[in-house]
């Protein structure tokens, strides 16, 4: 804690005294279905945390709870020690949606989408000022999409699409970014670019939480990892969390049976057992 306490920009109350994200014993039901069951998680500033769990483990629900989109039945969420609404109003929360949740045919250019990051800073009609335009240009530059700024968003590659949404968070000035499956449908080179970009953002003080099936990329990208199965089963160093016996807790026992001794093959098999396209591509393509 103390190690992270010094380099924060000055605010009235030093934010670093509080964890960037505190999820305290949160329980969420959807009707009869139990989505989160007393999940607890504390994440420090400027850390990158990978959130691992199979479908239905509550990853999206946890994101929604952190953004304050759903009210937990029990427990609480604090961002920099305050309720999420405050962080939202301040424009602190950036969100990069899952590809399936975006209408890629929507008639907007890359620049239009990045400009949406500035809406919280703008007036009643969201008329962009010079400063807004400059922030958008800077963000586009940062994610290396300047030359594609006027393309319709659907005409980008998988990795470029993700970077466009990261740029929106940068233009917004987000101090915390939530990324939902950022590596699904992304080729290896783009994945490296995104990884580098996120590491840069973290070194600037941005706290980053990533839900992912891509276990192979995790140790390069993340400072810490969380195993989620309706509750937080484990939270620690990625190398430790990715140990097969630990993954087995979250993904089911077949991981152990299929994987044998080594630790990377275990990571490879855990993906497909999660049963998604992202998982299987992680299994088939990343065998270097």
């Amino acid at each position: 804690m103390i190690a992270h306490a010094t380099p924060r920009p000055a605010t009235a109350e030093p934010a670093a005294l509080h964890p960037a994200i505190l999820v305290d014993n949160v329980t969420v039901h959807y009707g009869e279905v139990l989505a989160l069951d007393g999940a607890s998680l504390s994440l420090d500033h400027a850390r990158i945390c990978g959130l691992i769990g199979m479908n239905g483990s509550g990853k999206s629900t946890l994101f929604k709870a952190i953004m304050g989109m759903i009210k937990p039945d029990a427990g609480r969420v604090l961002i920099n020690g305050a309720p999420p609404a405050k962080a939202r109003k301040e424009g602190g929360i950036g969100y990069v949606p899952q590809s399936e949740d975006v209408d890629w045919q929507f008639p907007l250019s890359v620049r239009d989408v990045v400009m949406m990051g500035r809406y919280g800073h703008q007036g009643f009609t969201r008329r962009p000022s010079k400063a807004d335009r400059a922030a958008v240009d800077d963000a586009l530059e940062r994610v290396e999409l300047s030359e594609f700024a006027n393309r319709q968003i659907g005409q980008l590659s998988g990795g470029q699409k993700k970077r466009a949404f990261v740029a929106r968070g940068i233009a917004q000035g987000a101090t915390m970014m939530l990324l939902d499956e950022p590596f699904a449908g992304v080729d290896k080179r783009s994945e490296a670019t995104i990884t580098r970009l996120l590491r840069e953002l973290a070194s600037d003080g941005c706290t980053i939480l990533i839900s992912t099936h891509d276990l192979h990329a995790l140790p390069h990208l993340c400072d810490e990892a969380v195993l989620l199965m309706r509750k937080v089963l484990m939270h620690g160093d990625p190398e430790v969390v990715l140990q097969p016996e630990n993954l087995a807790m979250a993904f089911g026992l077949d991981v152990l049976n299929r994987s044998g001794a080594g630790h990377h093959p275990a990571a490879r098999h855990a993906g497909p057992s999660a049963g998604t396209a992202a998982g299987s591509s992680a299994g088939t393509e990343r065998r270097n």
Partner: protein
Amino acid sequence: MDLISLLLEPLGYDFMVRAILTTALAAIVCAVLSCWLVLIGWSLMGDAVSHAVLPGVVLAYIVGAPFALGALVFALIAVTLIGVVRNTSRVKEDAAIGIVFTSLFALGLVLISVTPSQTDLNHIIFGNLLGVSIPDLIQVLVLGVVAFAILILKRRDLTLYAFDPTHAHAIGLSPKRLGALLLGLLALTSVVALQTVGVVLVVAMLIIPGATAYLLTDRFSRMLVIAPVISATCSIAGIYFSYYLDTASGAMVVLTQGAVFAVVYLFSPRQGLIGTRLAKARRRKAAALAV
């Protein structure tokens, strides 16, 4: 008779001038709104709300209140009922919409049948373009300008709501409130368009222009210009057609819009069925020549 006199002759009648003004106004407001409706996938919702306002309009007529007020109340009732039926039973949304709006529409028809002055109210159903009075025109003008102004001033928020409500929430806006605003504007716009094409065909004005513009451009800001221009042009042309062909005016307006959509659907250079094939053939030919 040359073209100029063909165009000028109907303008000699006051009722034609009023018809053209009202239609153009309604066409523009509906077209602007339609850009969001087609992108969110609310076409059916547009259909529902525009039909469901009928009992509200009839009740407003009976008690002497403004039509818009009655329409707004019933639009709200319709949307609430649809939400309740969808969320609290196993019935899916499209079925919920179908049940609620047809029932409310039927209620409106029943109310009309028991209300003395029947001729007036039947016009709400099929429109009465050629019988637009000065007060009607003023009402359409006021409501239309209000709806148009709100849509244009809040266009960026509404587009954000249509594109990514989660982000809207994350930056402290309320997607719920933006959705409600859009529904309220939908109700208001329905009232504007009732006068021209009637309840049954309002939905055409609320869908076709946006869908047509969507096939022509990749920029939302351009859709907001293309849709009203096409819609107003089609509507005025429709009135002329109905004048010379002696056909139902509201229906003719919708038919013209539909015909223009068909042409764009076939020949749009980016999205059109034939347009894209021609472009592909040209590219193939160019490639063959290059070899």
